[in-house]
């Protein structure tokens, strides 16, 4: 029983990360019907933003008071990236056939990965490194902030890591704030309107362009928090961390119901738990760590076969 609860905790931790990133995918897809491939990179850049803030402003300090600043740094980095992306790459392609934005997204994803890899510790085309940042070509250790990292808690035979508590806590808080934003503020209601029918929303006087930027920004904020959480959990970040996480997060978004924010959260958690349980309980040679990712994608295919609108029902359904 202990093992079950332990893996449940592991799964919820992992799933919280997926959920935070999945919201970004689902919000953008709900409004634009665009799979923002580059959202995984926004997540990665958020983590790097936090790292940079910590290295530049608080080098060496691990007090808990550094954490809010790191989160702010992460948010600035990822929101900046997302807004620039939307403005210069996606907006001109608003009316193009589906293929164009999708390939653009793949291009942006590759570009951002390489850009961080090559230019994190030097201004492009020079070797000027004013803040003495580390090389991004290998994994970079992430600062271990007190209170949120350190010895784990043992509760009745189940080990709960501090970083796990941070992640799940962050998800709860972000979900609450997001719910409030979407349902109780004017902009949030505008987002709902635009995702239902953009033209009518425009007729109703809603500035659709601005809403779209807000949608990207909202997704980016959550991704930034996820970036900090992953850095704390794994103790390192790298330029490649966005790819697989992004893919799984999109799987989670589809699992929960694309376009449905609550669905993204639920989908993320379910996916995390399924992965953890598969690692523990699938017997024989096909169990264990290496097959973890495969089960995630198999789950995706199964969902698409049996319930394409996802667990909670998609809000932007478009069956072939």
């Amino acid at each position, binding site marked *: 029983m*202990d*093992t079950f609860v*332990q*893996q449940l905790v*592991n799964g919820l*931790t*992992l799933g919280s990360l997926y959920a935070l990133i999945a919201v970004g995918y689902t919000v953008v897809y709900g409004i634009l019907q665009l799979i923002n491939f580059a959202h995984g990179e926004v997540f990665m850049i958020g983590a790097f933003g936090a790292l940079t803030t910590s290295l530049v402003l608080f080098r060496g300090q691990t007090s808990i008071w550094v954490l809010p600043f790191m989160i702010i740094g992460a948010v600035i980095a990822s929101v900046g990236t997302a807004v620039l992306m939307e403005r210069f790459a996606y907006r001109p392609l608003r009316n193009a056939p589906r293929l164009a934005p999708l390939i653009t997204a793949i291009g942006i994803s590759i570009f951002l990965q390489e850009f961080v890899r090559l230019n994190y510790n030097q201004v492009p*085309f020079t070797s000027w490194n004013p803040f003495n940042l580390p090389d991004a*070509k*290998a*994994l970079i*250790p992430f600062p*271990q902030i007190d209170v949120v*990292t*350190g*010895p*784990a808690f*043992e509760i009745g035979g189940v*080990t709960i*890591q*501090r*970083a796990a508590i941070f992640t799940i806590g962050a998800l709860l808080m972000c979900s609450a704030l997001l719910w409030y934003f979407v349902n109780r503020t004017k902009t949030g209601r505008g987002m709902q309107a635009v995702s239902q029918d953009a033209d009518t929303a425009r007729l109703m006087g809603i500035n659709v362009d601005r809403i779209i930027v807000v949608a990207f920004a909202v997704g980016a904020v959550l991704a930034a928090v996820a970036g900090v959480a*992953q850095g704390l*959990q*794994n*103790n*390192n970040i*790298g330029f*490649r*961390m966005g790819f*697989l996480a992004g893919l799984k997060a999109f799987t989670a978004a589809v699992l929960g119901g694309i376009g449905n924010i609550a669905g993204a959260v639920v989908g993320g958690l379910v996916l995390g738990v399924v*992965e*953890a349980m598969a*690692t*523990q309980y699938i017997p024989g040679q096909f169990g*264990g*760590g*290496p097959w*973890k*990712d495969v089960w995630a994608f198999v789950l995706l295919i199964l969902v698409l076969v049996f319930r394409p609108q996802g667990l909670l029902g998609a809000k932007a359904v478009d069956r072939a």
Partner: protein
Amino acid sequence: MHQRSVVRVGAPLIIAALALSACGSRNDSTTGAASGDKIAVIGVMAPLSGDLSALGLGIQHSVELAVKQANANKTIPGWTLKVEAKDDEAKPDVGKNAATAFAGEKNVAGVVGDLNSSVSQSTQPVLATAKIVQVSPANTNPTLTQGADFKTAPKRTYDTYFRTCTTDSIQGPFAARYLFQKAGITKVATIHDKKTYGQGLVEAFTAEFTKLGGTVVAAETINPDDSNYSAVISKVKPKGPKAIYYGGEYPNAGPLSQQMKAAGLNVPLMGGDGIFDPKYIALAGATATGDLATNVGAPTDQSDAGKKFLADYAAAGYKDPAAAYGGYSFDAANSIINALKVSLKDAKDVASARQATIDALGKVSFDGVTGPVAFDQYGDSTSRVLTVYKIVNGAWAPVNTEAFK
């Protein structure tokens, strides 16, 4: 309208041309040729970029140092040596392309490489076909010199392949003996990353450990691309191991150690030469104290020759440290140079001397910075000294050096 599009393409081109002028040549070479001398190239294949670049760059610079000294001392009269380094990115594919490129160049006399056993598996056949000698400073998998059936029927598959470090059939058991006899640990869990090196190391370790009487309570694997190992740690923890033996390299071992300790599995992690790097300590964080690693040979800074090597290396001003395999690469380069002393003496060009180089390399014997350098009938190093290191105060400190019998 027409001019616009023409210029539209032209202007960026000019800018691009100006920008590209900042890019330099890809290949590294040392020392210009003395006029009249013939040129022989010693190639280097190692991961010069990516996660393991710390080790790879150390290999490259150590070879460059050896060649620089050889040229300065005019070790091979009438010939000037140059170094050409190619990046194998720790991937078998890329390594194969690099080896193919070397095989196509006529004045390559020998190659020092690779770092990873899995990469050498792909590069060995290519270089063997071209009869270019290959000396690895770091490959520890036994199959590379003794064939797939090395335990029962060892057979040398490629007579161009040599190595200056010992093999895992010695390194694994060495670690097993240390854990069982010196550290008193009888219950161990093993984890590896499924690559040739890690898997081979763990297999050798397990065989010896169980022979000594210990138990391996869990044998798991991880995917090296993964960054979160909580699922595997949770599987292993309930079985109560007193140490984890890891087969693989530091980009995964470091985070594994940190996550292990954070999850409450407070036991030392022991690995092979693949985790012996300062970057492991950086990645594993503050909880890494007590982790262990084995490395081939005695500590470089304890012998006189080793101290001199490190001093020369520092004086040469290379940006990256010599890292774990600096000494071995230096010895590997010198073994090739010693062989070339014999084979290039009366040779007209490098290509015709290749067979002679292979024969001469089998017979070299000298004192290198890691100890006496010589090769046995399989191309393995005859030196069997290994050291166990422990992390103390944030750095690797040697705890036990002995020759394996």
